[in-house]
């Protein structure tokens, strides 16, 4: 929980009491170039270093996010994203991608490999779960010549920008950054500044331009118990203006960042309470081998391990089967809910209900979880129509699709497509008949251009076009019917899958073999009774 909530409140009140910082203040409070000390894991970070190391060894995961503002750009990175962007080869790849566009030499490309102004800071923050937010001045004109977004973000994470730059102007520089949640200043355990390497035409510029990073607790991104996303803002001060530029973080970004940290949050559930609690909800055993391990932990009541294993697995490809994903997320939501972490549980339930709006939980489910599901439920058709009826309805183009608001556009599309094609077919057929009538009536001697061959050609062409539209109409009509039946069949199947979820009895004990792929090993699991 947010044990240090009082501190940002105090800092914020102090700031209000003394007024907004002046440019001189901003200069005076500029972040350091080197970290003063190494951050301890803290009460919420025990074991985090080992966990993130294990994640990084498993593969690249964790998305970083870029926000473009008027004068600044902001890169938001989770610890997993920082690890994913850490390889020297990525910045070299980005520079190599821009080598031709910016006329760079091989030596310059190779030089960028060594650019890493944040190495000391990243090392200092390694053991603590923190979100890094970097604020850069914008390029005058950005060159999107990098070899992909990953390389571009990796280069940005090291302060390298590619493009054309004007001479630096003080008001466009970043002197200081504040991170505020719902208007209140959040404590940043670590902040620093580093030079910006401007990769421009034929040269790597170091004109004194700097960018700033602040590291903030992921809890700042947590929704409240009602599931509402907090309002997060960056207040960016330049060296001359007293007022900051206020950059709000998009809601989707806030949710995504917080959700990336959920596997780690889940890991802490068992630390908080070591006593195993066998949940009331039971799901089918997954097919995915890693999720089977999480499933086993869940069934024996190790809720934190179960949720963490499951959510960590979902961070990596290949994606497990859809049913496995659904049950893994429900297990995690159940785990969070049973440990009174309702914000996390609600977030997961919201995600689940977004995909499965007709999902209903078994009567054994905790009331809180059921309430969360109901709160997150969006309007959807949660009943099915008999397939013969759908087939019969589909005789009217589009009526088979008109089963709910979600498919209204498709229904209209099928109807309009069929009607338009049929209408065009009729128009062309009518046109062709007119030409043919003229053809039959032609008796020679007319002016040039209206002779019999051209009249016949026009009639036949119009008829062929009409036939093509008729085929199109029939195709849309028939395809619409087939789609409607197939969709209803799938809908019915999906409904059955998500009805009274959680009442699958635990699997009877017995000997079983299953292939196993874990984060750190591969093999065969033998389960004995």
């Amino acid at each position, binding site marked *: 929980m947010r044990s240090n909530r009082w501190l940002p409140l105090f800092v914020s009140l102090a700031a209000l009491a003394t007024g907004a910082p002046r440019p001189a203040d901003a200069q005076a409070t500029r972040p350091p170039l080197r970290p003063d000390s190494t951050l301890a894991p803290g009460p919420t970070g025990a074991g985090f270093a080992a966990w993130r190391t294990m994640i990084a060894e498993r593969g690249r995961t964790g998305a970083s996010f870029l926000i473009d503002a008027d004068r600044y750009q902001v890169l938001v990175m989770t610890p997993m994203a920082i690890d994913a962007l850490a390889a020297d080869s990525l910045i070299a790849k980005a520079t190599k991608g821009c080598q031709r566009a910016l006329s760079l030499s091989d030596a310059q490309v190779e030089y960028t490999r060594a650019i890493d102004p944040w190495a000391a800071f990243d090392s200092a923050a390694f053991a603590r779960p923190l979100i890094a937010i970097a604020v850069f001045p914008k390029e005058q004109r950005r060159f999107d010549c990098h070899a992909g977004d990953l390389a571009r973000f990796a280069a940005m994470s090291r302060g390298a920008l590619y493009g054309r730059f004007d001479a630096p102007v003080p008001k466009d520089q970043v002197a200081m950054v504040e991170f505020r949640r719902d208007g209140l200043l959040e404590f940043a355990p670590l902040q620093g500044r580093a030079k910006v390497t401007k990769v421009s035409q034929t040269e790597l510029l170091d004109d004194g331009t700097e960018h700033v990073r602040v590291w903030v607790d992921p809890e700042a991104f947590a929704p409240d118990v009602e599931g509402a996303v907090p309002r997060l803002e960056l207040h960016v001060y330049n060296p001359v203006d007293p007022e900051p530029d206020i950059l709000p973080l998009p809601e989707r970004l806030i949710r995504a960042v917080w959700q990336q940290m959920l596997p780690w949050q889940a890991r802490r559930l068992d630390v908080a309470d070591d006593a195993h609690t066998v949940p009331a909800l039971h799901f089918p055993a997954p097919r995915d081998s890693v999720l089977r391990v999480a499933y086993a932990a869940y069934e024996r009541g190790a809720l934190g391990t179960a949720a963490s294993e499951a959510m960590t697995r979902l961070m990596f490809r290949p994606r497990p089967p859809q049913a496995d994903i659904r049950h893994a997320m429900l297990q995690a939501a159940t785990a969070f809910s049973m440990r009174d972490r309702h914000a996390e549980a609600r977030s997961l339930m919201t995600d689940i209900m977004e995909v499965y709006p007709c999902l209903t939980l078994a009567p054994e489910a905790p009331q809180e979880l059921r309430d969360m599901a109901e709160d997150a439920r969006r309007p959807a058709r949660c009943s099915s129509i008999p397939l013969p009826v759908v087939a019969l309805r589909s005789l009217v183009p589009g009526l088979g699709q008109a089963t709910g608001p979600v498919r209204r556009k498709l229904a209209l599309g099928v109807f309009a497509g069929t009607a338009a094609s049929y209408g065009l077919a009729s128009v062309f057929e009518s046109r062709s008949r007119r030409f043919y009538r003229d053809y039959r009536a032609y008796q020679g001697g007319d002016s040039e251009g209206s002779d019999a061959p051209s009249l016949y050609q026009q009639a036949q062409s119009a008829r062929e076009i009409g036939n093509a539209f008729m*085929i199109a109409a029939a195709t849309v009509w028939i395809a619409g019917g087939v789609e409607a039946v197939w969709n209803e069949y799938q809908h019915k199947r999906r409904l059955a899958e998500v009805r009274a979820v959680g009442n699958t009895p635990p699997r009877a004990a017995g000997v079983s073999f299953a292939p196993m792929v874990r984060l750190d090993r591969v093999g065969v699991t033998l389960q004995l009774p």
Partner: protein
Amino acid sequence: MTHHARAAAVLGVLALAGGCALQEPYVRDNHWDPRSSATKSLSGPDSVFAMGDTFRVTLQADPPLPPGAFYTWRGNEMYEGPPPPTLVYPAGDGLFRVVSSTATFEVIAVSALFDGVAVSRQVRVGQRVQSYTFSCGVACDALTWQAGTSRSVSVLAADANQVPIRRIEVAMQRGSWLSRDPAVASVAATTANPAGTITISAVAAGTTWIVVRLDRAVDSLRVVVP
């Protein structure tokens, strides 16, 4: 659904399905269309042998031509350069007139034109000798033949319309001549010539007939050698 609604739906579907039928290619049977499957032909005489003659050809069409259909008749009146020796002009409504011809039988195409589509018939046109007379400078009967002497006799031929045969040498190539008694008079080997002359030689005393056949005309010249 009620029975009525079902019946309405079925009828609607049947109507739609009926309307959905693909249309076959149109029949191409316009007589003025060069790629039409319609048939046309001309019937009439296959030869005309006198200058000034007229002949009529008749057009047959399947499907029948509509009333007032527009088409034109054509002989060989359209030419470039000097006029050809044989000319056939259309006189309207399938009637043609031989305006000019010679003893040469030429094949002339007469046509009915439907814009760019022509239906034609080939007609052999020329002058066939219908009658002729011998020309001996004086009355042929009054000629005196001396044994061992030769004389040239001309043939004056005309076609059925009494129009003098043009290019008589062509008719001579088709013709023949002989002496009934070569011991009295003989016909010299004669090449066809534009003047239409043959050379007769008196051999010995006696009387004989020189028979000349040109196309369908046959006549004889009496030769008396004292």
